[in-house]
């Protein structure tokens, strides 16, 4: 009788261990005194000290975070527009083609996207002189093009779930279309925007292939740096850096989760009040 929950909890535990075990081991080993990444020889915070003295690594981390934030923001703006069109406009000329094009980057091999972006930038430079060389801006543009489809899919799904009669009611009450979008639609799909932003941020942060193609002088990102270190040896500084990034991301997700939870509670309360009163 009581056995079912035990089995369920075991599976839950195994599932979480599968997801978070590797991350926990990175955090654990970041306090390892040993230079060998997987051999424990004592507690130490020396790799954090080394990390902060390693200017090149810090610089690469900042470049990566900057690119990730910019491309996530760009992808949310464009992805929302695309998702909105796909969910709210039942038919327009070329809709199937548009839907296919928006989701194509999801299944396109990164090597092809990377090479195509590189050729585009080189071609543009020859024709109109822009972009003048490649760097942070070209990486950001390339990242936006492939992360926006993730955002579009999320936004589209959220809009499909949403009760369209709310928007219609607002229009009945005299709101203009843009007012409906800003006052009704946007707040309702906000959770999708937040998760889309975070997803785009993460994808951009750890992309290596496309970034390698479209990077230029002065734009070494963290993944490029880490993979390049393989040649002469990866040091546990990377564990320390990963721990810091996990810390930052966890804090961000916790805050956004708490905000969403509070919003949901308020919504439920007002719904109850409306039903009761």
């Amino acid at each position, binding site marked *: 009788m009581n056995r079912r929950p035990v089995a369920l909890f075991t599976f839950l535990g195994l599932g979480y261990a599968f997801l978070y075990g590797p991350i926990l081991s990175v955090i654990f080993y970041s306090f390892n005194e040993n230079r060998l990444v997987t*051999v424990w020889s004592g507690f130490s915070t020396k790799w954090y000290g080394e990390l902060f003295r390693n200017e090149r690594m810090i610089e690469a981390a900042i470049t990566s975070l900057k690119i990730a934030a910019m491309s996530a923001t760009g992808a949310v703006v464009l992805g929302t527009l695309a998702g909105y069109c796909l969910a709210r406009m039942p038919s327009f000329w070329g809709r199937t083609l548009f839907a296919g094009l928006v989701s194509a980057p999801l299944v396109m091999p990164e090597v092809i996207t990377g090479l195509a972006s590189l050729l585009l930038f080189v071609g543009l430079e020859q024709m109109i002189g822009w972009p003048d060389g490649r760097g942070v801006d070209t990486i950001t543009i390339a990242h936006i093009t492939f992360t926006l489809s993730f955002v579009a899919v999320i936004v589209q799904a959220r809009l499909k779930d949403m009760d369209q009669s709310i928007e219609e009611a607002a229009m009945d009450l005299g709101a203009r279309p843009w007012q409906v979008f800003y006052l009704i639609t946007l707040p309702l799909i906000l959770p999708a925007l937040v998760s889309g932003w975070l997803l785009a941020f993460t994808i951009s942060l750890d992309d290596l292939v496309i970034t390698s193609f479209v990077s230029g*002088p002065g734009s070494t990102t963290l993944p*490029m740096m880490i993979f390049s270190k393989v*040649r002469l040896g990866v040091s546990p500084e990377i564990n320390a850096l990963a721990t810091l990034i996990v810390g930052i991301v966890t804090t961000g997700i916790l805050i956004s989760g708490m905000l969403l939870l509070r919003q949901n509670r308020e919504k439920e309360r007002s719904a109850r009040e409306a039903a009761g009163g």
Partner: protein
Amino acid sequence: MHTVKLWASTTALCLGLVGAAFAPAALAQKKVVNVYNWSDYIDPKVLEAFTKETGVKVNYDVYDSQEVLEAKLTAGKSGYDVVGPTAQPFLARQVAAGLYQPLDKSKLKNLGNLDPEILKAMEKADPNNAHAIPWMWGTNGIGYNVGKVKTIAADAPVYSMKMILDPDTVAKFKACGVMVLDAPTDVFPTVLQYLGLPPDSKSLADLDKATDALLKVRPFIRKFHSSEYINGLANGDICVAFGYSGDIIQASTRAAESKRGVTVNYSIPSEGAQLWVDTLAIPKSAPNPDLAHAILDHLMKPSVVAASSDLTGYANGNKASTTLVSDAVRTNPGIYPPAEVRARLFTITPADKEFERARTRAWTRVKTGR
């Protein structure tokens, strides 16, 4: 009145925008030289010294494979002033494709410091050394766990390719673990040399013989991989590996640092070993060829090269710097081999498409064991 105000604010806005657009341009006036190489390959301190001396900022970007560098160069206008291709096969085919500009040797006062032997080895890739200077070099050889190999076979021929290619010898180490590089161009030449055939042979019959030799020992090899053996050796998970000298020396350093009783040694096969050279060259599209020459000249100063050799643990192609390299690196026969071993080092030349295809097919046969 109203319009005047509007006009004034619009002008101010426009001026602001123009100013904003020009500000980065003004900053960019500061001289910058863009270097593209492996991470940690050039000591950051020597680049800082260059900045202090000349006022030129050095942008040091890194790649994770030679292929990425090649993709950048072939796409055109990479924006880099100095890049670090490996002599074979990358520099060779990139020089042939006209991706580099000839060095202006009048601007390179320190050229005399370079090692003539290494320059000669590079000539196969870069005729007359017209486009590139050597940076670090090393060999392909045998890394082994000293303790374990001794317990298994006290008389193991650690200075010979028999460690990998003699079926009776390598069979003893099967249980302990044997790994080999996953790179046909870095394995076949050494096998040919072991068999007494010309290492640079382009004959299909020779290739077949080398393939057969590898197939005989295939059952005893745990894995073909080009970097896993570093940790494998350092942790004591494997006993013997055929790999790049730099990687095995790195494994040896790590094993020593972790103080777990693992000692890793590198030996250059007595039959003769393949030499590799990492070079420095200036792409044709370099935005600042003058500065590129200046930094190349800086990177040929003995003290500068010696500092980078100490950092990487690799031998360098700068003869004048040898005495300045730390004892640990300089006296290691795996890094700076004695003259009689150096005499047996060899390099290879690029193959034509047909042979390359045959070699790739042969390599697939070796890896799959069929």
